[in-house]
């Protein structure tokens, strides 16, 4: 007598099939992510033999830890700015009627279809010394000297905020749009004025979106390369630029790998810390 429940066997076959279907993707990930990252890890400990020299230099040489500090500072600033700018946009999109909500989201998502490079150059055109912004301000008589809007940290922040804004708006929108409308109606009917109801009901319920958006933006910002390279004017050296310089200028693969590993560890640590507050799947928008 077979002890196996037929339904169980069926279930197992189903699971096997699913695994088979997923295998090409798994193979690609192993080939393109797991192996290179492993190789990277190996490189970072290697300089003609096992060594911790690369890591020692990261923590002792000024150029490295300054760059790390700058990167984290910019990431934090960008995160705060995208939150301030993105929250009202997401709120409007979540509350507008059709077709306005679609329109708002379309404008948020549209820039995604444009290359980051193009957008960075566009900002350069807008912000440079003889750029549109300075010219307009000059004509209006508001400034006598052109403002230094680009080739510095400010330029990097402006463009990065612009590029990362959708990553803030979309998780926020996704969370807000799931907050039942009746909750705010209930708040009002129970005597809560608009501000009271917002602070006590809407804001707390939108926090998962806030945390998700902040995490995404912060983590993405840590690894930003093209934008600071183009708009930072060589003075705003973020950590990804340190990596590229190590490889391109000095051919120091070990040093570059070590920086990459440290960055990766930082990102994973952030995700794990945040993951303790809200589960990752919730953060990515699936409830």
């Amino acid at each position, binding site marked *: 007598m077979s002890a196996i429940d037929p339904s169980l066997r069926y279930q197992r076959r189903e699971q096997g099939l699913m695994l088979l279907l997923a295998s090409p993707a798994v193979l690609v990930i192993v080939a393109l992510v797991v192996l290179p990252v492993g190789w990277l890890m190996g490189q970072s400990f290697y300089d003609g033999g096992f060594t911790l020299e690369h890591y020692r230099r990261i923590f002792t040489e000024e150029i490295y830890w300054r760059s790390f500090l700058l990167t984290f500072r910019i990431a934090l600033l960008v995160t705060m700015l995208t939150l301030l700018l993105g929250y009202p946009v997401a709120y409007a999109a979540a509350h507008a009627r059709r077709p306005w909500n679609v329109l708002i989201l379309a404008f948020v998502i549209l820039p995604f279809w444009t290359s980051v490079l193009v957008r960075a150059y566009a900002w350069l055109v807008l912000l440079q010394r003889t750029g549109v912004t300075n010219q307009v301000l000059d004509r209006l008589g508001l400034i006598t000297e052109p403002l230094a809007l680009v080739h510095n940290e400010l330029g990097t922040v402006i463009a990065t905020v612009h590029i990362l804004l959708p990553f803030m708006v*979309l998780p926020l929108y*996704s969370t807000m749009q799931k907050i039942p409308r009746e909750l705010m*109606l209930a708040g009002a009917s*129970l*005597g809560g004025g608009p501000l009271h109801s917002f602070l006590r009901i809407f804001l707390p319920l939108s926090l998962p979106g806030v945390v998700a958006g902040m995490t995404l933006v912060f983590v993405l910002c840590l690894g930003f390369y093209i934008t600071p390279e183009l708009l930072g004017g060589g003075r705003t050296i973020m950590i990804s630029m340190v990596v590229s310089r190590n490889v391109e200028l000095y051919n120091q693969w070990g040093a570059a790998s070590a920086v990459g590993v440290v960055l990766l560890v930082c990102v994973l640590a952030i995700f794990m810390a945040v993951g303790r507050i809200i589960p990752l799947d919730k953060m990515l928008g699936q409830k």
Partner: protein
Amino acid sequence: MLLIIWQLPPSAKSPFIVASNAACGDGFTEIRAAEGHVSGASTRHKTDLWHDLKSVFARASQPPLYRDGRVQMAESGGERVEIRSASKIYGSVRALDDVSLDIAPQEFVSLLGPSGSGKTTLLGILGGFVQPSGGSIHFGGRDVTFTPPHKRDIGIVFQNYALFPHMNVGENVAFPLRARRLPKSSFAERVRGALAMVDLAGYEERGISQLSGGQRQRVALARAMIFEPRLILMDEPLSALDKQLRETMQIELRQLHKRLGATIIYVTHDQREALTMSDRVAILKDGKLVQIDRPERLHDHPANAFVASFIGEATLLPVRRIDSSSVALGGTVLRTSRPIAPAGDLVLAIQTEKLLVEDGTGSAERNRFSARVTDIVFQGESLRVFLALEDGSTLSLRQPSHYEAASRIPPIGQSLKVSLHPQDTIIVPKTGG
């Protein structure tokens, strides 16, 4: 990472249940101690006196409905509600069409109608979430048509409860107190009192997700009445509960209404629920008020065919007027002691329980006719017997399922003699009021 989030919001159908309360004093000047309340009589007397004085001198003060965690009864806390020619037009749809309604203080009125009848729109207008296109709303004589919801002092119980998921039971119930910036020191006791009132004493610390549907319903009720509203609106508050719990809650709501003394406006599409709980039932159809009356009057004196079909378990059959006291149903002449409209199409509304199987007893004046049994459905305490008349029109009756009664029903296909008393022979106009 983009994948995430491109979903459009679900079309926001917003069910409203609202309870409202005019927070001030005069309704609660008389506070009667709840029966069985056994604290020191003399101290309580003093406290009551103090509250009476307070409400005389400061009408805005809020004498407590609860004391020592127990419920005190309010003698007259109900709000008079007047709806004058309220209309709401969405695009080309008249969701509400010139509805006028006067609701007395402490009355329990149900708004009954099929979906799309305008009952939810009307509730939204009362709650302040929907601006009427025309007409006005008055609470206790004061025009509140354009008063925002948070200033209306109405307790609202929403269809899906609308409890705040990030707050525990106690915080949910205390929300109205916090919103009114009442002293925090009074919260714990009032929350305890409100929860005791809905049989949830000691549930303060529970999370909302830990509660059953019935418990959530009770929390929503406690939250809607903790600020002693003089008007409570409820939007199908029991529709998510199973049948048995629903029936228990109906009775509880009735009793709660008596204890609170608030005016309650209750939206439902369940006619039985409306009949069970209400002092009066307003029947809405296509945005119009068709009839408002006491439950038994609705049942016995429906204004038209729609009301007759909506209330009870009626079969509607077209009839021809013969004179002022009789009509013809096919070839059968039926006498009625009810007035018959002088003109227009008429229908006969036969409630299943009023059509009796003829057993040779019964008064001579009964209308008697024969019909063929087409089906017999066993439904527990009763049988529903489907009948066909000679002209093919069908009707049904209900017969108790006990042996003697059931054995009077012949097998399917055979003929059955039935009778209908002239008092139960309800003739209504096919349309209009």
